């Protein structure tokens, strides 16, 4: 049995449509105008124990909503989901004891108190054995090297340090399933890297199941073998990271090194010119046309060297999101 099973899960919000003016505001007291917004549309997903899965998608695609549904924070409109056999939104204590959610944009630690006070509270709420608690805390603080910061009020910590504390708080009760929503948002490169390394190590050691959403392709590339692309509330792709390029990028990058004295004039006839920095030229063309185009170029120009590459992943994803964004804006205007 898969550890996470989602079937036809949907969540739509009723958004109150505000109208201008006082008279319509008063009318709004009796009859409100609502608009249905589908945040998640009939998602199906299975995740096996020990997987590290990334959710990719533009803002508002439904990644966070999915994580919140799986955490039981919000109720679905329809569909089912089971995590370790529990229905998340029943919020049984048993379930809540076995998973954790970390959100990069919200914090749960007491702002004015040292993090260790919040940790102690967690120990009591989760009923962690004192010995176990001490051991886990020591291990986590050691891995994240924040031991000396435990006694400092959270508000005095840097964003990166705070995120590490949030992670510790979430992992104190050794969850078997972990949901990470933008855990590295707003962090500098070093802190990002630290957290990546930590997550990677921790996941491999414990073989826990992690679902991650992130805007940073580096996070995803470093951590996840499996990628789920969500746009406009629906799953568009589910597979390996490299597969994303095959599926979503119809183009290839062609790098030419022109011979000395060879002009680049007229290359735009064959393909879209990305950049010209003589003697180097970068072209972009449709995948199927590579052989034909390459042979015509080789006939007409003197070329020293040729390389054909896939476009960079980040670009593919960015394009994908842009398309999705324009798609969904079309839908709204319809």
């Amino acid at each position, binding site marked *: 049995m898969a550890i996470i099973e989602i079937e036809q899960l949907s969540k739509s919000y009723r958004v109150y449509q505000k109208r201008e003016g006082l008279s319509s505001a008063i009318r709004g007291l009796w009859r409100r105008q609502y608009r249905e917004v589908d945040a998640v549309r009939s998602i199906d997903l299975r995740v096996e124990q020990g997987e590290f899965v990334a959710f990719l998608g533009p803002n508002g695609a439904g990644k966070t909503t999915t994580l919140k549904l799986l955490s039981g*924070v919000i109720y679905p409109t329809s569909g089912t989901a089971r995590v370790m056999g529990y229905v998340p939104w029943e919020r*049984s204590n*048993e379930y809540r004891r076995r998973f954790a959610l970390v959100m990069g944009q919200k914090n749960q630690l007491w702002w004015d108190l040292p993090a260790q006070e919040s940790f*102690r509270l967690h120990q*009591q*709420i989760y009923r962690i054995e004192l010995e176990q608690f001490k051991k886990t805390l020591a291990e986590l603080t050691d891995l994240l090297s924040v031991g000396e910061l435990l006694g400092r009020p959270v508000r005095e910590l840097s964003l990166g340090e705070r995120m590490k504390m949030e992670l510790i708080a979430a992992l104190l009760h050794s969850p078997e399933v972990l949901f990470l929503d933008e855990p590295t948002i707003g962090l500098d490169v070093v802190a990002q890297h630290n957290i990546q390394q930590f997550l990677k190590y921790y996941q491999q050691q414990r073989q826990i199941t992690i679902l991650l959403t992130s805007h940073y392709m580096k996070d995803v590339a470093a951590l996840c073998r499996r990628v789920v692309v969500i746009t406009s509330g629906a799953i568009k792709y589910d597979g390996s990271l490299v597969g994303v390029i095959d599926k979503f990028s119809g183009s290839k990058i062609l790098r030419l090194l022109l011979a000395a004295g060879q002009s680049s004039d007229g290359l735009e006839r064959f393909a879209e010119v990305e950049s010209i920095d003589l003697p180097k030229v970068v072209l972009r063309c449709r995948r199927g046309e590579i052989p034909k185009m390459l042979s015509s170029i080789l006939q007409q120009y003197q070329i020293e060297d040729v390389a054909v590459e896939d476009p960079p992943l980040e670009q593919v994803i960015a394009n994908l999101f842009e398309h999705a964004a324009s798609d969904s804006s079309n839908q709204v205007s319809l």
Partner: protein
Amino acid sequence: MKIAKSVEHPNYIQVFATFAKNSLIRNMMFRTNFVLESISSASWALMNVGFYLIVFEHTNSIGRDTGWEKYEFFVFLGTTWLINAIVQAFFMPNAEEFSELIRTGGLDFALLKPIDTQFLVSFRKVEWSSLANVLFGLVLLAYGVSHLVGRSTHPWQIEPITWLLYPVFVFCGVTILYSLMTCLAATSIWLGRNQTLYDFWFYITNFSRYPSEIYETGWGLPLWGIFTFAIPVLVVVNVPARLLAQPLTPRSPSEWALAAYTLLATVASLLASRWVFQRALRSYRSASS
């Protein structure tokens, strides 16, 4: 919500103690603020007493044959302050925070914890500075009671049972106010903003701060009915205060009936608050930042 028997529940008392401890640490970090708040809430209380001192310069009792003479009324005032201070210390900061948690989506974290969510949001913070008013209420009570016991014309004795019943009814009063506050705070899940709700809270509880006898006439009767039966804020202070301010016997049967009703109203309003809270959680949408 089904909870399997085998699951260990958190030790609620211990968790609450930690909440209280953390709040105290926090309060002590902003010590000047703490002192100022203690002083300011105590001065409101003093002013309130000052007002009634002035009133009692001109009259012997509030209402004819109501039994609310000066020192009896001090018992009433003491009870009012005691109950309100307890509510302010334990629930007011949490109710405010609850609306804030809904607005910012911070409620997510409360929902994740393997602990009763209503407990978690209701007891998270303790405003220790309000305990100054608890003290103040107790002093006022002691002052009033000692005069009643020590006066030369029919002094009265307080039966031991009164000392047992009084805390019970104070607890009932606190619970009723807590339930009302929880209901009001929970509605901010639907309404979004809550400024008017707090005004509403203030105006409603304002009715509880006076002896119920003043409403029991003419066009006060509908008010008395509403605030006794629909929103039972009138019994909050009145029942415990009357218990302590008057001799235990003789009492009219209606008073015992009202006391019994108070117990009932406490249970009912607590259940109502749980129901509203659960309903509200279902509509929670978790604001994403």
